[in-house]
């Protein structure tokens, strides 16, 4: 399969990328692991692809009480980042380890995945549980959007046509926290039939987010996953009907909570 004809431009910095995005039907490309497949299927037919893969938006650092992840950080970069190797952030590596495959993790980026907003993508659940914020830049200026407000639905976000994700910011969890990501994957596609991320704090409080079961990853509103899942409109298909997904989501949510609470004990 060959994409429809498209022009290619390599951006030299964020401002240049935003300028190039001024063209109608221009699209950003970084790792291309979501965009190129849909271009090959001709579901996406941009007139121009703006390559941002060489911009300096890559890397992981802890600044004060924040974990900052550059939008061009790959899944493989996350796996190699010592900053994340702690019980409170364990869900990030646990999730990144299972995304796609080795080749996809070498190319695919955190920002690209968030912008693509596949309803079954794994990392948004983790970042929701960790209360992440997405930092955006456009010609109008910068803004920070909590992830919970960033995704509007399947493959739809609040991003303006001429706007770019620069960074994902995670507040460092308090001492004595643990996190975990547990999913059951479709064996062929690798996408989550149901996935759950949990952040367990030192005071027994717990935030749980789920993915793969609804139009978008979402935070559970109740401590009891089964009660919380009752109010969610669950998606079903020939692989996993809605009732099955609901039951599976309750299982992975419970497992994620237990694992996160267990890890919290080791966060000293």
């Amino acid at each position, binding site marked *: 399969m*060959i994409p429809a*004809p498209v022009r*290619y431009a390599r951006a030299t910095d964020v401002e240049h990328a935003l300028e190039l995005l001024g063209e109608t039907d221009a699209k950003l490309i970084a790792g*291309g692991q979501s965009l*190129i497949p849909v271009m090959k299927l001709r579901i996406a037919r941009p007139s121009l*692809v703006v390559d941002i893969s060489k911009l300096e938006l890559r890397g992981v650092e802890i600044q004060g009480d924040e974990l900052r992840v550059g939008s061009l950080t790959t899944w493989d970069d996350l796996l190699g980042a010592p900053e994340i190797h702690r019980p409170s952030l364990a869900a990030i590596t646990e999730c990144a380890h299972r995304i796609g495959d080795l080749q*996809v993790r070498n*190319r695919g980026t955190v920002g690209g995945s968030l912008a693509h907003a596949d309803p079954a993508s794994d990392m948004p659940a983790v970042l929701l549980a960790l209360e992440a914020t997405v930092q955006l830049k456009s010609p109008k200026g910068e803004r920070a959007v909590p992830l919970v407000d960033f995704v509007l639905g399947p493959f739809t976000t609040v991003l303006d046509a001429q706007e770019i994700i620069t960074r994902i910011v995670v507040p460092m969890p308090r001492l004595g926290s643990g996190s975990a990501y547990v999913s059951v994957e479709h064996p062929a596609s690798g996408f989550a039939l149901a996935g759950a991320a949990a952040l367990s704090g030192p005071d027994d409080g717990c935030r749980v987010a789920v993915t793969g079961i609804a139009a978008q990853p979402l935070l559970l509103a109740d401590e009891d996953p089964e009660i919380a899942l009752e109010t969610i409109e669950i998606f079903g298909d020939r692989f996993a009907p809605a009732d099955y997904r609901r039951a599976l989501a309750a299982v992975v949510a419970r497992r994620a909570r237990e694992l996160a609470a267990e890890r919290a004990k080791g966060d000293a």
Partner: protein
Amino acid sequence: MPETLELVVNGEPRSLEVEGRTLLVHALRDGLDLTGAHIGCDTSQCGACTVLLDGRAVKSCTVLALQAEGAEVTTIESFASDGEMHPIQRSFIGNHGLQCGYCTPGLILTAADLLARDPDPTDETIRHSLRGNLCRCTGYQPIVESIRAAGAALREGAAR
């Protein structure tokens, strides 16, 4: 509208004309006549088109050729030198890691990425690394054994 792509392939600077939509695998196969990167599924599932891009395994059907501007690309064609096969190639032959051979170049490139980072991987790590490479002949066990043995051969070579 064709553009000039300049990159280093198997250690040699190369230059060719590509379109914005040209995929790296097509640039290698049709533009440079390097047909070792195979097209299997063409949907980023099977890994037969795997090459190294700046040392890391990627599916060349899911990279735009122009994204490789200035990069170093390594394909299976560079593995044997002076008539001597690479230890990973020898290990695949010695351990029956292939039957029809269609997936083999991709598997060898994935193994090269894995073993460069983890010279002594566990079987679990090997299996996890092969998630993106499909083989319809072997049932994978001989491939795991091939990579395990290749790791040992490379470690021995490095120690000598």
